[in-house]
């Protein structure tokens, strides 16, 4: 579908925990072309500090209801303002942007790994491909139980595995300490989004075991559609824009 910049009506703003909200946008033109990993770039109104738009991966896209939802974590003034938006109000959004994750083949065994805000594209990934394979495992990592959000929704779409750094829910440690990695060679594909150190560690395991692995990078962006050249990451073919050549990259493309 074509990229566009539009004022979209907010349908819902659900508080998930102290930090995060799920915000549902009415988007009359959404279609099934939107891929997991693609993102929307949202304008913040009336912020002294937030001048540029803020990018968020699609968490869910509902083609029948003509809506999509984003998960927004309060980090600074801009995201705090976005989280205080009320249903009926409008926000300016540029969408859909970036590249998506590669579609897994039918019946491939897939591991989705999300950390922090990186859980968002994993939901769309799981929902989109759940019908064609029963072999989706979803591993989510967080600091503590209170930082794990939307677990009930994830439970519906795959085999859910959890870690916390303090051991308050799931296995204790980082996602890469989870026992599923003992059987990692049984997986065909790994998809991940989260903090860079987490994705680098996962990428290394994937490489060592010769498993296909895609990561979604979160570099700071200026425009989101490939013209400012600010969000670049070094690749085997030189600097590439995370916003248009990515945010999804195969680990073999990166200089990790």
């Amino acid at each position: 579908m074509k990229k566009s910049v539009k004022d979209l009506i907010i349908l819902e703003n659900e508080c998930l925990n102290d930090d995060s909200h799920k915000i549902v946008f009415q988007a009359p033109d959404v279609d099934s072309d939107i891929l997991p990993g693609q993102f929307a770039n949202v304008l913040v109104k009336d912020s002294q500090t937030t001048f540029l738009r803020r990018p968020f991966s699609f968490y869910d896209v509902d083609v029948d209801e003509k809506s999509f939802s984003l998960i927004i974590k309060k980090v600074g003034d801009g995201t705090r303002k976005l989280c205080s938006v009320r249903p009926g109000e409008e926000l300016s959004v540029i969408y859909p942007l970036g590249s998506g994750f590669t579609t897994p083949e039918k019946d491939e065994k897939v591991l989705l790994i999300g950390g922090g805000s990186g859980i968002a594209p994993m939901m769309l990934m799981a929902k989109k491909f759940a019908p064609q394979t029963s072999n989706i495992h979803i591993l989510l990592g967080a600091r503590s139980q209170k930082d794990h959000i939307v677990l009930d929704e994830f439970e519906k779409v795959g085999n859910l595995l959890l870690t916390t750094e303090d051991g308050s829910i799931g296995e204790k440690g980082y996602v890469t300490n989870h026992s599923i990695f003992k059987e990692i060679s049984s997986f065909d594909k790994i998809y991940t989004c989260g903090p860079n150190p987490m994705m680098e560690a996962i990428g290394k395991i994937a490489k060592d075991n010769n498993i296909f692995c895609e990561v979604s990078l979160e570099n700071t962006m200026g425009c989101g559609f490939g013209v400012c050249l600010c969000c670049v990451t070094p690749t085997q073919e030189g600097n590439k824009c995370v916003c248009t050549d990515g945010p999804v990259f195969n680990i073999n493309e990166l200089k990790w």
Partner: protein
Amino acid sequence: MVKLAVNIDKIQLKNPVLTASGTFGYGKEFEDFIDLDRLGGYIVKGTTLHPRQGNDYPRMAETPAGMLNAVGLQNKGVDYFIDSIYPELTKYNSHMIVNLSGSTVEDYVIAAEKLNELEHMPAIELNISCPNVKEGGMAFGVSCAGAESVVKAVREVYKKTLIVKLSPNVTDVTEIARAVEAAGADSVSLINTLLGMAVDAEKRKPILSTVTGGLSGPAVKPVALRMVWQVFNAVKVPVIGIGGIMNATDAIEFMLAGATAVELGTANFIDPAVTVKVVEGIEDYMKRHSIDDVNDLIGALEV
């Protein structure tokens, strides 16, 4: 019908709205958002004789009402532009202008000679003001002798409209403007970004990999307006105003201060459809003020 056309040297622009180099890619990135033919013209990204990888990430820092960038002229070189980009762009009827940068006078001259051969490109904008590359442009643009040497050399080989983009990082911008006019520039555009810096207090580190970078956005608008006004009063060639223009009112302010045309830069990042909105907004302003010809706005500031 109001008359929106303006002239920069031999080129007639259908309206005064251009895009600033480095904020508009090669133009085609905006195809989903706007009809490029609605613009007076579009200035494509800074091109150099040889390909450049640009500076390391992080290259950008958000600042109050603006941003710092230190992209460092990442581009695939002038030959790539001519062979792979230019042919695709000739389908638009808006004027295409390339921004040309270099690290030596010779580099500028060789690239300008190549660009002179492009039938559908009526002008180049000479970047002697990039703050993010060592010996890259700004070194030329901050002294009269440096500016004069590169403009003179390019003027000898480039026969079409030569616009020179000026740096604000100087003591007296009018001296540089006069020097490039005397060296043969057909027009001057200003301002390029203001040299600035951002610091991460928690990490005790600069945010940009290059420590310093170029500031753009509404934060620089008052400085840009002042410089456009000064240069308008110092030279005879048409002035193109750049610096934090976000809407039609901003554009009109620059025209009143002496700009014949304007370039929209950072605003494209916030709203990729802003350029067409500015064209429409200028038209609305003229109707409200019963102005038939946009040229009547140029330098019409009542002081």
